[in-house]
C-alpha cells in the first residue's frame, strides 16, 4: 500500500537528477539555477535570515556569478555544507561551486582535485583571550585550554604552532562557531582560535566585547576563496573572472551607483572592456558582453560587498587589512582585463 511512496519519490528524484558530465556553464544555463555550496552558518559570510534568504560575503560571490551567467542574482540554490560534506558535494556535481571560507591548500588543490579560482578573503588563524587573563602574546599560552572549530585546517595549524614553540595545550574541538563561543564565554576554555575574521565577528556580538582581546600573532595563512571541480576550465574561468571583475571594479572606481553611467562608455579603455562597451571579453567567456556589469550591479564592487557584509560599519566590524587593494597596501590584485 505504502510501497508506492518510494516510486513517487523516485519520480521526483528523476526530476531533480541532472547530468553533471557536460560543461558546467551549459548545465547551469540549462538548469536556470546556480547550485552554490555555502557554510551552514558563519556570521557575516553566510547565514539565512528570517525569510530564508541567504546573506553574507561568500553568498555575494554566488549571487555575482549567478548574475553574470544567468542574468538573475536570485537564481541561486544555496546548499549548506559542513566541513565534511563540502568537498564531496562539489566532487559529485551536487554543487557547481563552493564558496564556503575554504582555505586554498596544496593537497586540496592537487590531491582532492579542485581548482581554487581566486581568493576573496585573505585570512589567518588568530587567538582571542579574555582581557582578564593578562596575556599579550600567543607565546604565553603554555598549558592553556584552547577551543578550536573543527573541520578546517585550524586544528593542524594549532598542533604545529604549539609543537614548534614547545608548549603544551589542551584542545577542545567544537563543531560550530556558536558552540565554541558559548564555551569560551563561560570560561570552559582560555583561548578561542579560528580564522581572525571569525574571531572579530564573534567578538563583535559579545555582550562585553571590550573584555576580550585578539592576540597579535597570526599563526597561519588562510587564503579563502571559491573553488570548482578540476578539469572544467570554462566554468573555472567564469567564476574566476567574475571574482576578478568585482575586485577590478573597485580598483577602477566602478560602483553600483555609477555603473550605469560608466557602462555607456568612459575614457578608460579597461573599464570599457570590463563593462562590455568595448572588446569581446564576455564572448570569450561564453557569456554576453554585459556579464561583468550584472555581476557588479548585484551588490556593488568588492569594496561595497565587503563594507555591506563584514565591513567596519557592520556588527562584524572587520577592517580591510590585507584585503585592501594593492594600491592601498593590501593583497587584492586583479589581473588586467585585456
Amino acid at each position, binding site marked *: 500500500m505504502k510501497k508506492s511512496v518510494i516510486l513517487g519519490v523516485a519520480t521526483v528524484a528523476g526530476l531533480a537528477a541532472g547530468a553533471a558530465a557536460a560543461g558546467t556553464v551549459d548545465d547551469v544555463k540549462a538548469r536556470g539555477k546556480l547550485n552554490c555550496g555555502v557554510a551552514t552558518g558563519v556570521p557575516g559570510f553566510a547565514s539565512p535570515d528570517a525569510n530564508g534568504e541567504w546573506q553574507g560575503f561568500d553568498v555575494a560571490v554566488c549571487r555575482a556569478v549567478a548574475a553574470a551567467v544567468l542574468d538573475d542574482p536570485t537564481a541561486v540554490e544555496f546548499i549548506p555544507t559542513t566541513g*565534511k560534506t563540502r568537498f564531496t558535494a562539489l566532487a559529485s556535481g551536487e554543487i557547481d561551486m563552493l564558496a564556503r571560507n575554504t582555505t586554498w591548500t596544496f593537497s586540496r588543490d592537487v590531491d582532492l*582535485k579542485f581548482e581554487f579560482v581566486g581568493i576573496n578573503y585573505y585570512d589567518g588563524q588568530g587567538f582571542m583571550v579574555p582581557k582578564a*587573563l593578562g596575556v599579550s602574546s600567543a607565546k604565553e599560552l603554555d598549558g592553556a*585550554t584552547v577551543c578550536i572549530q573543527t573541520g578546517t585546517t585550524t586544528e593542524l595549524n594549532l598542533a604545529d604552532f604549539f609543537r614548534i614553540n614547545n608548549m603544551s595545550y589542551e584542545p577542545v*574541538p567544537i*563543531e560550530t562557531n556558536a558552540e565554541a563561543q558559548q564555551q569560551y564565554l*563561560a570560561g570552559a576554555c582560555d583561548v578561542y582560535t579560528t580564522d581572525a575574521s571569525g574571531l572579530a565577528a564573534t567578538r563583535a556580538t559579545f555582550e562585553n566585547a571590550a573584555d576580550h582581546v585578539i592576540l597579535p600573532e597570526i599563526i597561519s595563512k588562510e587564503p579563502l576563496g571559491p573553488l570548482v571541480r578540476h578539469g572544467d576550465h570554462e566554468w573555472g574561468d567564469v567564476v574566476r573572472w567574475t571574482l576578478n571583475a568585482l575586485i577590478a571594479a573597485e580598483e577602477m572606481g566602478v560602483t553600483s551607483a555609477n555603473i550605469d553611467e560608466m557602462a555607456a562608455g568612459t575614457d578608460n579603455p579597461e573599464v570599457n572592456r570590463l563593462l562590455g562597451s568595448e572588446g569581446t571579453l564576455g564572448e570569450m567567456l561564453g557569456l554576453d558582453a554585459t556579464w561583468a556589469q550584472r555581476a557588479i550591479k548585484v551588490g556593488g564592487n568588492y569594496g561595497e560587498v565587503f563594507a555591506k557584509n563584514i565591513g567596519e560599519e557592520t556588527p562584524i566590524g572587520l577592517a580591510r587589512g590585507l584585503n585592501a587593494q594593492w594600491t592601498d597596501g593590501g593583497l587584492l590584485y586583479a589581473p588586467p582585463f585585456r
Partner: protein
Amino acid sequence: MTTLTDPPKEQFRLSMLLYDTRYRSATIQVIAMIAFMLLAAWIINNTIQNLETLGRTVGFDFFAEPASYDINQRLLEYDSRDTHLRAAFIGLLNTLVVAVLGCITATIIGVMVGVLRLSNNWLIARIMTVYVEMFRNVPVLLWIVFAMAILIESLPAPRAFRGENPEATMDLFGTVAVTNRGVYIPEFLFSRGLGDIHLFGTSSLRFDVSLDLIAFLIVLGGSIFAMRKVSAWANKTQEQTGDRPTIWHIQLGLLFVPSAILLGALGFHLGYPELKGFNFTGGTHLRNSLIALWLALSLYTAAFIAEIVRAGILAISKGQTEAASALGLRPGRTMRLVILPQALRVIIPPMISNYLNLTKNSSLAIAVGYMDITGTLGGITMNQTGRELECVLLLMLVYLTISLSISAVMNWYNNRVKLVER
C-alpha cells in the same frame, strides 16, 4: 510372480525447477543469490567507475601518514606526529570507555528508577515518571547538548578558584576540583613503581601495561583465593561440628593486608590536582565532554531501562511473592532468589538492545567534541585526508564489530540466566 521394479524414473524437466516443491526452494535461493551478487557487482562497478572519473584511488596508505592533530583525551600516549591509525585507535578506546561507563551507570540508574516508579511514595513515583517521559521523548542529541551546556554554564571556571577569596573552592577536603572544564580527581602514583611493559614496539597499536597494576591485581587475586579457602574451611567446620568459627577478621586481614603491604612497598600515594597557570595540573582530568556524554547517554538509556525493569517486575505474578513468603523467605531473599531470576529472563533481551543503542549513540560524541572514533577516524582524519570511502566503511566495520561482540556476550549471559531458571 511379482517382480519388484523401481518406479519409472521421473524425467527431469526444466519446469520442475519452479513447480516441484523439491526443487523450488533451491531455485528461489539461487535466484536470490544471483540477484544479490549482481547488486553487489553493480555497486562495486559504479564505485570503481566513479572513482576513476574523480581520479581517485582506494587505499589505506594514508593511515601511515602523521595525523597532525591533537586529541585531548588519550588513554595511551599520542601526539600530533603519530599516525592516523594511532589516532583512530585512541578514538576507538575513547568510544569503548564512554560505552562501558555509560552501560554501567545506565543499568544502575535504570534499575533504581524502575523500582522507584513502583514506590508507594506518590511523589517519588511521579517524579520518576516525569523523568522517564522527559528523557524518552526528547532526542538524545538534544540531551547531550543540554548536558554539556549545563556543565559549562553552571560550574565555575578554573579562574574562579584563583585569588585570596576565591569564588569556588575544591571539594572533599581540597582533593577534587569540579570546574566547567571537567572534574579533576586525585590520581594514583607510585614513587617506587615497577615501570611499564611496552607492547607492540613502536607500531601504531603499541600500548603500555603498568606492572604496578599487574602486581596489585595478582596480589588481590591471591587474597581472594585465600579468602575462599578460609570460607570453605569454615563451612566444612560448620558442617562437621555445627559451630561456625569466627572468620570475618581473618577475611578482612586477608583482603587488605597483602595489598596494603604491596602498595606501601611500591610507594603508593595520591597525586592531588592543583591550580597552576591556566589549568589544574596533576590528578586525573575527567573532561567535560566525557562527563556530559556519559551523563546524557546514561540518563537517556536509563529511562528506557527503567521501563524494562518495571515491566519485568510487574510481569512476575503476585503468587510468586506469596509462595516465597509461604516458604518463609524474607523479602530481600524473595527478591533475590525468586523475583529477580524470573524477571531477568524478561529484562535481559531488551536490555541488550539498549546497551547496543547506547554504544551506537555514543557516536554523537562529536556534538560535544569528545574525540571518539567518529571524531577521529570519521571526523578530523576524514576531513584532512579526504578518504571518505575508506574512513566511512572502516568506521562502520568497527561499530559492527563492537555491536556484534556486545550481542554475543549478552546472549551468552542470557542463555546462562535461562539455564538457572529451568
